[in-house]
């Protein structure tokens, strides 16, 4: 086996040194009846060439965004990833290192982590970010638990325009400790109903949770929501599933958010059938000791040279055990590095430019779709790169028809919202050409 260097002779020599007759003797502590006295029922080893063939065959049976004209978004976005990202994160020094417990020989990972934390703060308008979470939904759940710890309160007010999977994950986490959820409807503009929010908020509310832009692509007005939450002593948790939007939209921090969380996958890390992705979680300095996850901090070495370490570990499970802020330890360091490289490559101009292209292309598609017979734009409010289309025929039938043209026409919202069972959620990123959008319009015109 090419991954196992020791030969039979090496093993013999080692056994002799140890004074054992066989490897089997080393397993003497495993009681006989518990031993598996047969080979595992797993196919025999494949040579590298056979493996590549097998995996290529499997990959070929998936409809990737290179071969299909896809309008899927809904929390996972097809953005262009510059070649240098893949090359730089393939460096063995980044790829094959562990969590930087030994800072003297981990300064690369640590400095990159410090840069990542800074970039998340710049993007979200917050003061402090941790070094990464698993992905957007569990990061949102952890943000809610954090708000619960900070306020000591047990109710969570969450908009129905928050990603349905994020809400489901938050409920799964929160159910363990008995938090109560109140869901807020959306308006005809496709944003969270502010009056309903005000009615639901109270002295037991730990936090209000909204998505920005929301699941329907709608741009929430955060300032009045923050004011409403703060008026009852609750925190505003803003979750962002499409970080590219923050290249153009006012930062949640500027609008009064107390915690900003979400998904960094859009920052050039690829779709990968949904994972691994990149959760982020940022907050105000005053709450830093309630943050879950790793934190990189700047310090100096014995000789006064600047450098970085993991810090404030007294929040964490390996020190605090059952009293820790979370059980999270290792999260998504390498994906955070991908997002870091993406953001610094784009810079202030590039990030704005790519966000603008998303906005304009989606606006173009939205404008044209609104005029296709049998289609209508469902919500009246402003949107970023996603929008909801109400269709006269069954969404499933429309998607099936589009597939004949190699078009994947978005998400059938009936899957998540029975009240939107006649709707599709479409996403248009900078990757879509006008030609591809026009092909969608043309194919939709042909739906009978």
């Amino acid at each position, binding site marked *: 086996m090419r991954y196992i260097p020791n030969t039979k002779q090496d093993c013999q020599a080692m056994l002799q040194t140890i004074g054992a007759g066989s490897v089997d003797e080393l397993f003497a502590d495993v009681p006989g009846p518990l031993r598996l006295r047969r080979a595992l029922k797993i196919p025999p080893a494949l040579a590298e060439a056979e493996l590549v063939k097998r995996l290529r065959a499997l990959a070929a049976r998936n409809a990737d965004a290179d071969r299909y004209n896809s309008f899927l978004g809904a929390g996972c976005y097809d953005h262009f990833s510059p070649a240098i990202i893949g090359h730089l994160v393939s460096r063995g020094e980044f790829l094959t290192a562990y969590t930087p417990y030994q800072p003297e020989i981990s300064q690369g990972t640590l400095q990159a982590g410090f840069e990542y934390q*800074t970039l998340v703060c710049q993007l979200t308008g917050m003061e402090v970010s941790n070094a990464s979470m698993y992905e957007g939904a569990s990061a949102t759940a952890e943000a809610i638990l954090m708000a619960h710890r900070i306020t000591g309160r047990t109710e969570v007010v969450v908009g129905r325009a928050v990603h349905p999977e994020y809400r489901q994950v938050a409920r799964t986490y929160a159910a363990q400790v008995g938090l109560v959820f109140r869901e807020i409807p959306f308006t005809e503009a496709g944003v969270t109903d502010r009056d309903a929010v005000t009615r639901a908020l109270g002295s037991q509310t730990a936090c209000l949770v909204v998505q920005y832009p929301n699941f329907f692509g709608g741009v929430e007005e955060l300032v009045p929501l923050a004011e409403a939450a703060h008026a009852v002593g609750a925190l505003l948790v803003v979750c962002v599933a499409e970080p590219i939007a923050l290249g153009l939209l006012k930062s949640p921090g500027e609008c009064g958010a107390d915690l900003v969380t979400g998904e960094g996958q859009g920052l050039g890390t690829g779709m990968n059938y949904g994972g691994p992705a990149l959760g982020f979680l940022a907050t105000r300095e005053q709450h830093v000791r309630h943050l879950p996850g790793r934190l990189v901090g700047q310090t100096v070495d014995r000789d006064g040279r600047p450098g970085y370490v993991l810090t404030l570990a007294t929040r964490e499970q390996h020190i605090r055990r059952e009293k820790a802020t979370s059980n999270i330890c290792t999260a998504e360091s390498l994906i955070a590095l991908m997002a870091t490289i993406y953001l610094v490559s784009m810079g202030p101009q590039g990030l704005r430019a790519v966000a603008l292209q998303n906005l304009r292309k989606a606006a173009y598609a939205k404008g044209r779709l609104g005029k296709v017979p049998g289609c209508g734009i469902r919500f009246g409010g402003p949107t970023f790169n996603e929008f909801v289309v109400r269709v006269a025929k069954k969404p499933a039938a429309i998607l099936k028809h589009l597939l004949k043209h190699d078009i994947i026409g978005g998400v059938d919202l009936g899957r998540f919202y029975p009240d939107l069972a006649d709707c599709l959620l479409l996403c248009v990123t900078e990757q879509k050409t006008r030609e591809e959008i026009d092909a969608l319009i043309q194919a939709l015109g042909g739906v009978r």
Partner: protein
Amino acid sequence: MNGPERTVGTQGLVFNEPLIFEQGSPGRVGYSLPPCDVPEKPPETLIPPHLLRGPIPGLPEVSEVDVVRHYTRISQWNFGIDLGFYPLGSCTMKYNPRVNEDMVRLPGFAKAHPYLPDALAQGALELLWELERYLAEISGLDRVSLHPSAGAHGELTGVMMIRAYHQSKGNPRRKIIIPESAHGTNPASSALCGYQVVPVKSGPRGVVEPEAVAAVMDDQVAAVMITNPNTLGLFEEHIAEIAAIVHAKGGQVYCDGANLNAIMGVTRPGDWGVDVIQINLHKTFSQPHGGGGPGAGPVAVRKHLAPFMPVPTVEKTGDSYALDFDRPKSIGKVRSFATSFGVMVRAYAYIRSLGAAGLTQVAETAVLNANYIMHQLKGVYHLPYDRPCMHECVFSDAIQLRHDVKTLDIAKRLMDYGFHPPTIYFPLIVSGALMIEPTETESKETLDQFIAAMREIAREAREEPEVVRAAPHTPRVSRMDETRAARQPILRWKPAH
């Protein structure tokens, strides 16, 4: 050997490199975008102007060359498996096959959207379905959820399933028994599910005694959570008896599978009476650690817990595969979408590359390598539990403390010899622990070099302890002031005014 000069720990040209924020120049760009092929409407006409921001201040303005050089340079300040021996106990730092990285990047995997209709994702689903079968066979259990994003996330999911199971019987119960040698994630995951932790001590042989469990087991205990092989690198030889004690009172047996690499193909948790185990794909199945993730922590369960698995599961009907969300007793979801698919591709590729015989050889070689190191360093370093180990061995600094040299000093000095230090000060039940896990992907020559370096450091501790106490001497930076980092936290760069 005489000092580190003759070993592998030497340096090439290493650069100083400021933060990326301190580089660049206004107007410099590192990106390209195709021209916009739709009408370029002013953003204010599409989004109310008060919701818009300008270019983000502080983002660096650098060229592509700047970015490549910056991250290449700082990468060189890292140690990784590709550079050398990384015997970080409990973390299983084995070689990460490069072909697996290529496979993840195939467009059919990398550019597949998670909401593809199942009919358009048959390759991905088939891979997941087969991987589940392999992991079930290795663990000796019935079903495996590929949903959780990390080992700790898998623990949390497993405990949630146990809670849902007890709840379905009318009482979620209040407590979970956890040995003191456990990883901190075990109590933390239990606490996230509202359970009170009941600690049990290990016996004199370093393993949990059935009597200790029996003494605290009652009908309010939801589960015992036990790591096997444990964090001392020892096989919990009474595991079957402990399982019987817990089952007799209606409890569940959770096995922390962090150390599955030691026993793969030799013995199976399902055959010991275990009901749930999380499998750390970034350890046993060689997912690269990436400086701290991504990993994944699939959870294998016995049949009676399968209804509580998170959604979706992957099911096969005839020749076609589908995601199943219709599971009424499911705990729900702990992440968006189905799984960390890229991690699953690597695990699948790893298992197929090793095959049945290779997987068993992994465990046997890992155990042989650890025993070899243990034997060669016994007496030079204090071995608190002197008996054959599994995939890792735990020493302490008791001998070196006589010369006022402690575990941290030994760890730092190893860097000068070109090795990553072992895990230190864990498990907590051994004072000054040095936890060494060689893995199967190291040759005898490498192990001999490491052993020689450890012996040399022991000599230094006796004869020139100040050299050890001042280590490391080779890396770009010396010991960092961690107290200062925690007392005056600087957690982000800010522009100088």
